């Protein structure tokens, strides 16, 4: 056997092993999620959330909304936050040097007037230009600062926070009225140990939005957005529930995450040198807590909903996915010492290695593997029947896992009332595995190239404002 033949055969073997391990892990996570979600829903009824809402002893939360050129949606976003049902909270909007009308629109809509707000110096940030407080809503303030990126804006928001917990929210997101109370549930339950929680992100494209609230849940007309709806079910209801059960949750979405302020300050706030500041912060908090040897928990809560606008154009989606992948790569590189390190428990031994092999390097296997497997077949090292059977099993398994994620949603939350929408999602489960997934892999491969070329920054962001028709 020549060296080239050995390479092809080894690649084929690696590809097959990769599919078996990845899908096997997802199958296990699906079973874990089915059990966890059922238990969570049973517990939800008796967790005393309504009483916590009425209690003067419920800890306060500072909601931080970083905004860079968000003039299209800033007013709706803040309005949805003002309607949050939580006993004690404040909203800090951080205008990160926007060059559009973000500041003017916010000031006009909420009657924000300049005041000399005292800011902590716990985390260094770009200079703050001015601070404002709303005359109408005394729990709403705005920090106007020089542009320094999302992570820097979040750090400025933490410095302005008055409450012991901070909740980071994307400016293009809408938070359901009960979501803050629900995402805080694990903290109210166990404030000694829980240092961070995150809620589920759902896609608002296609939904009817009134005064900052999603009032009718529908599937978007854009095929690309529907595929993301399904993809999010898998990521949140299966992936995050599964990782939470091992206390190895690496991702709390930047769109909606709640943190103990002290825990964030102790690790120095968000890292400003990455585009994946949400993942990186969570990994750093994990490491800090484990280094200190204090018992802690980072949890995903499946019912508090954050609605967000999904990209409907290929180019925007491609940019988003490349950015996410670069962020993951930067995080893994910064925390390479924790990968496979038993000192970090499930995080070091399972979580980080999984994200390295299956998420970060996965696209290499998924993009390069099938063509090389095909070559191995052409060289006569694989039988046609084997190749076809393997591909069919791999795709079928993917479809079963996606259908199972949809079933988890349908059994536990049932947020899509229209039967037609559910049928459509089931049909798209096929395309998610054949076509969309490969496209994603291609973008993530390009992100590896971006990383090699040391590309930085977020790239252009196209925001039409949540609930408004697409022009793309």
């Amino acid at each position: 056997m020549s060296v080239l033949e050995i390479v092809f055969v080894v690649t084929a073997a690696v590809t097959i092993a990769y599919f078996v391990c990845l899908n096997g892990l997802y199958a296990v996570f699906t079973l874990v999620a089915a059990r966890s979600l059922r238990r969570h829903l049973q517990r939800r009824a008796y967790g005393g959330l309504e009483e916590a809402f009425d209690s003067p002893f419920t800890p306060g939360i500072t909601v931080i909304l970083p905004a860079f050129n968000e003039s299209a949606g800033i007013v709706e976003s803040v309005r949805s936050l003002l309607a949050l049902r939580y006993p004690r909270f404040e909203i800090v909007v951080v205008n990160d040097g926007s060059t559009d009308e973000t500041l003017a629109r916010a000031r006009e809509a909420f009657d924000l007037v300049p005041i000399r707000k005292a800011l902590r110096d716990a985390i260094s940030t770009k200079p703050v230009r001015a601070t404002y407080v709303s005359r109408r809503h005394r729990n709403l303030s705005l920090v106007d600062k020089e542009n320094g990126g999302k992570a820097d804006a979040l750090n400025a928001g933490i410095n302005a926070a008055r409450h012991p917990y901070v909740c980071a929210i994307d400016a293009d997101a809408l938070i359901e009225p009960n979501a803050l109370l629900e995402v805080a549930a694990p903290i109210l339950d166990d404030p000694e140990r829980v240092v961070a929680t995150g809620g589920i992100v759902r896609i608002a494209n296609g939904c009817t939005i009134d005064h900052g609230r999603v009032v009718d849940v529908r599937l978007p007309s854009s095929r690309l957005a529907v595929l993301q709806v399904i993809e999010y079910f898998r990521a949140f209801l299966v992936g995050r529930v599964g990782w939470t059960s091992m206390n190895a949750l690496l991702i709390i979405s930047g769109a909606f995450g709640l943190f103990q302020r002290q825990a964030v300050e102790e690790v120095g706030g968000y890292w400003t040198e990455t585009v994946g500041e949400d993942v990186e912060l969570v990994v750093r908090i994990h490491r800090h807590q484990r280094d200190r040897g204090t018992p802690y928990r980072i949890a995903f809560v499946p019912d508090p909903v954050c609605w967000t606008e999904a990209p409907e154009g290929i180019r925007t989606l491609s940019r988003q996915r490349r950015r996410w992948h670069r962020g993951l790569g930067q995080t893994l590189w910064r925390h390479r010492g924790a990968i496979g390190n038993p000192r970090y428990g499930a995080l070091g031994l399972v979580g980080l290695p999984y994200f390295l092999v299956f998420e970060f390097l996965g696209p290499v296997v998924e993009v390069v593997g099938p063509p090389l497997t095909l070559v191995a077949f052409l060289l006569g090292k694989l039988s046609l029947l084997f190749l076809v059977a393997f591909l069919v099993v791999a795709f079928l398994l993917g479809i079963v896992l996606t259908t199972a994620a949809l079933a988890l949603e349908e059994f536990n939350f049932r947020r899509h009332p229209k039967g037609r929408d559910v049928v459509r999602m089931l049909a798209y489960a096929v395309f998610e595995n054949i076509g969309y997934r490969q496209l994603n892999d291609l973008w993530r491969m390009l992100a590896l190239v971006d990383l090699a070329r040391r590309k930085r920054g977020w790239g252009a962001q196209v925001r039409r404002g949540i609930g408004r028709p697409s022009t793309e």
Partner: protein
Amino acid sequence: MIRAFAFGVIALGGLNSILLGILAWRRIRVAGAARRRARLEERLRPVTLAFLDGDGELPPLTRREQEIVADALGEYARKLRGPARGRIVAYFESQGTVDRELAALATARPAWRRAAAAHRLGDIGSARVGDELVGALADDDRDVRTAAARSLGKLRHVGGVEPLLAAAAASAVPTAVASWATLQMGADARPALLRMLAADEPAERAGAISVLALVGDAADGRAVSAGLGDASASVRAAAAHALARLGAERDLEALLLALDDPSPDVRAAAATALGRLRDSRALVGLVAHAIEDAFDVAQAAARAAVALDAAACARIEATSDGPHLAEAVDLAQLA
């Protein structure tokens, strides 16, 4: 190997078909059940409301109808007091529901069933279940304990005050829920709370002071102010917080001393309390802390100082570097 793949294809295809079938069946079943329930609720609402108003007894009902009426009465029980609540309790007692739920609370194996029983007993409102709910605060499962804590508050079972605060201090139930439950008992909880000021555990003493601050009156201020001399910083902070509501002129000296406490929590709480006392003798100390102390203390001290004398603070702020005084002055001008 090929045979294994073929088996895999058939198995996965079958599994997917089963999942699709279950999804379709559930959609149809849930929609049908919701429609039937809505119809029944509509039909039974007038007799349920008449029963609550004392205009008649409930007619003979089928098992399904009984469930729906019980659910409706459970919902109303959360909101009603007086004779209507008494009729609800009598109804559930007559149906044997209270005994059934007590049995479930004591013996059910699944924790969720015990939690459900504890929760329902609070909604029903029968006064005879208080001791069993206190016992449930020692259940192995946190949800059962939390549901029991909530129900003790619903029942206003004064015998639950000490066990509730002890459970919260031991982190056995969420503090927010245990404190809420104790607050529901209002002034009736005061004797137990005053007894707890002598508890061994600092967390219990601190919890009792915090609740006393909300249900007590000026007469309790003296007992609370003794907490400022406690060895535990959490108790001293709770006492200072409580004096913001219960404090009187006699507490001025003690609070001024607390402004120099080693714990920033105590200093911040003392500053807030001094602002509420509205005694101008505290101004100098508050301004000093507003300019020099740690962030949270300085902020509380600045706001308290401005509450005492906004004009003086504006003059001082114009010649000093303290950002907290500037903020407090600006906020006062907004008001």
